[in-house]
């Protein structure tokens, strides 16, 4: 299973990952349109991003969310009816929505943010055991 691994202790909250993500997928620099988001919890950086756990797959009423062959959880926007239940039920609070769009969005472990991270705080990894199960 491909996913974005994180090491929060290395994060310096520079926001580079957020910028790369929102620019890539929404052609704008906007933290709230980024699949990865850097927060601060108790004065420490928190990297909030999808773990590809797949809980949202069973929540979706129209089966718009599936796991692809690499194990990445993806939303088929054509099928999605925009109910946002996946956002409300995400255990990582990492399924995103923005009021300008009907459908939610999420990290697909593309790795562009990892390449841009100056601290190497994030990286695309493959979780073999889970991949085998899927």
């Amino acid at each position, binding site marked *: 299973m491909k996913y974005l691994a994180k090491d929060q202790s290395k994060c310096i909250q520079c926001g580079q990952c957020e910028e790369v993500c929102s620019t890539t997928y929404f052609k704008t620099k906007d933290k709230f349109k980024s699949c990865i988001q850097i927060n601060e919890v108790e004065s420490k950086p928190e990297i909030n991003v999808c773990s590809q756990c797949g809980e949202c797959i*069973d*929540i*979706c*009423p*129209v*089966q718009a969310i599936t796991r692809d062959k690499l194990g990445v959880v993806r939303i088929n926007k054509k099928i999605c*009816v*925009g*109910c*946002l*239940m996946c*956002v*409300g*039920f995400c255990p990582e609070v990492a399924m995103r*929505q923005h*009021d300008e769009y*009907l*459908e939610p969005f999420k990290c697909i472990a593309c790795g562009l943010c990892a390449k841009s991270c100056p601290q190497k705080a994030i990286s695309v990894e493959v979780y073999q055991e889970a991949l085998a199960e899927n």
Partner: protein
Amino acid sequence: MDINKLKEGRKLLKEFKYDLGSIEKGYTNRTLYVNISENKIESKEVTPLMKEKFIGGKGFGLYTLWHGTTPSTKWNDPENEIVISGGPVCGITQYPGAGKSLVCSISPMTDIPIDSNVGGYFGPYLKFSGWDALEVQGKAENDIVVFIDGDNGVVRIEEAPLEAVDSHVIAEQLTEMYAENEADKRNISVISAGTAAEHSRMGLLNFSFYDVRRKVQRFKQAGRGGIGTVFRDKKIKAIIIKFSNVKGDLNNAVDKAIINKAGLKLHKEMHYLDDKQNRMRQVGTAYSQEIMSAYDLLPVMNFQYGGHEDVKKISPDVFKNNYLTQGMADGCWYGCSMACAKTADGFELLTGPYKGQKVTVDGAEYETLAGCGSNCGIFDPRAILEINFYCDTYGIDTISYGTSMAFVMECYERKIINKEFTGGLELKFGNFEDSIEVLHQMSRGEGFGLILGQGVHRMKKIFAEKCGADPDFLFDIGMEQKGLEYSEYVSKESLAQQGGFGLTNKGPQHDEAWIIFMDMVNNQIPTFEDKAEALYYFPMFRTWFGLYGLCKLPWNDVTPANNKFTSEPAKIPEHVQNYLDVVYGVTGKKLNTTEMVRESERVYNFQRIFNIRLGKGLRANDKIPYRSAGPVTKEEYEARQERFDGQLKEILNYDVEGKTTEEKMAVLRKHRESQYEKLIDAVYKRRGWNSNGVPTIERLKDLGMDLPELIEVVKDMQ
């Protein structure tokens, strides 16, 4: 199933093409009129008056029904209508419970308007297809279907001689016929009734929604008041709608952000709190069965008792652990994270025409569990699911069936009716085998099934006339009012719920005033004044959901963590604000809580006057059977002697020492009946009605409901 063969039997009677139009702020601004006597189809304008005073949903249904019928219209007259309308919020996908339709018709059970709310995809698809309401009038010569193609703007009336009648079969046939492939099936919704709806007065309508995981059409029911009977009397086999490409913005809402915010907040409450609160996602509405039993409120053996030691055999966890599939998206419209439509999959039937088939059973919901289970003394989960399945597919309301069967069983055990009268069936409490045979007889239109299908109101008359029963005793134990069977709560100890049932417009159905929980479990309305006020506020508040296309369950079947610390926990203020926000988000209309209630009050008073127009709706019609207010029999009294004796001593200062049960019962009855009359006085006054239950012209003026047609009905009754 040979679809081509079914198609060959079809004969086109009328085709109507229309522009798909647009939806603005939740309204299409037109309604679809289909007359199946004359094969006439037309578009009608939604007027500003309709939107301002009737809002949508039940408001549109009652308004349309009033103008389509006359003071002498009976349920089976061709001019009686079936009106289906969602309301302006219906169809949004972001807030839980926003896919409801309200169905209105003149009821075969009550002879006054019935309104029944139902989930499933039909209501949203009707709007997306271009219509705020569907008005069906007339009576076809032969069996027909009506098809609304919301993708291409076509409506067809076709003769359909070969399709099945029972819902689980015809819904599959028609889905297969109208869907192009598996993925297209979720774009089809079917309304159907069933074979027993043809032979009884308690027929219901099933509204389908396609389950993409189970690959089966599932149903929600417009259950109450016999609308399925009207449907089959009109010779309608099904109404089918098709709409593809559902998205989250089809209502053209004015402020999507505020809707999203409210919806996400509720999704998160469901995510984090449901497992700790009501477990709706695990067991659905059945959760309340254990609580009801613990508080002596669960109907057992025709409402004689409020609990039973065998209730544990049909507890929600028994269903969850043995029958209900877990972890599925069980909402009946997109975005309902409450997901209460629980389902038993692969359920093998042991009786009837579908014996041996493995089917999907939706349920059992609380009302079915209580009505067809404990109220009939049936404590076998398998049996309850089988009854549930057959009621659904035959098109029978489980509440009317359960309460009617419970009444029959008590009459049988008290030897008011005998085996000869039932055609050899031993209808004792707990007898599943013989009682489900009655249901099959209802489907076949024979035997005792024809009698039970008349409902309690008419059975009382039949038993008195044919079996020499005491009509007064039957009135006391027959749990119906206005012709409609009680839904499944023992209201003996809850004066508020006695009024909640008795002072309804449609008859004793909890959706108008389900206040037993706040009265008896949460103790939130302790004083007489609190109860009277609750019987003003809650029926109005609850009516409001039906104007907009909303479900009530997400209002109070999960509550914010801090709700108990708010000023009015019973009202759940944060959720009320969510609804005000959602209505603003869709329509742009800024309401406050006072205006919200006034919107309902307009429609509520309209319905009351509609009842009066049809010869009911007065104080005499709000009389309740004593079983709903106190112990009718010695056994009931003695089963709770400590409680009743205590009340006689404490409240009436009555010395119970040396008194017979009969003497004590008489004193208690006099007290309780006078309490109910006192409650009526207080509630009528609060609602702006005179002592006969007639809305005053002054109140109608205050509400802006002094419409000429209403004044005409009430002016001589002031």
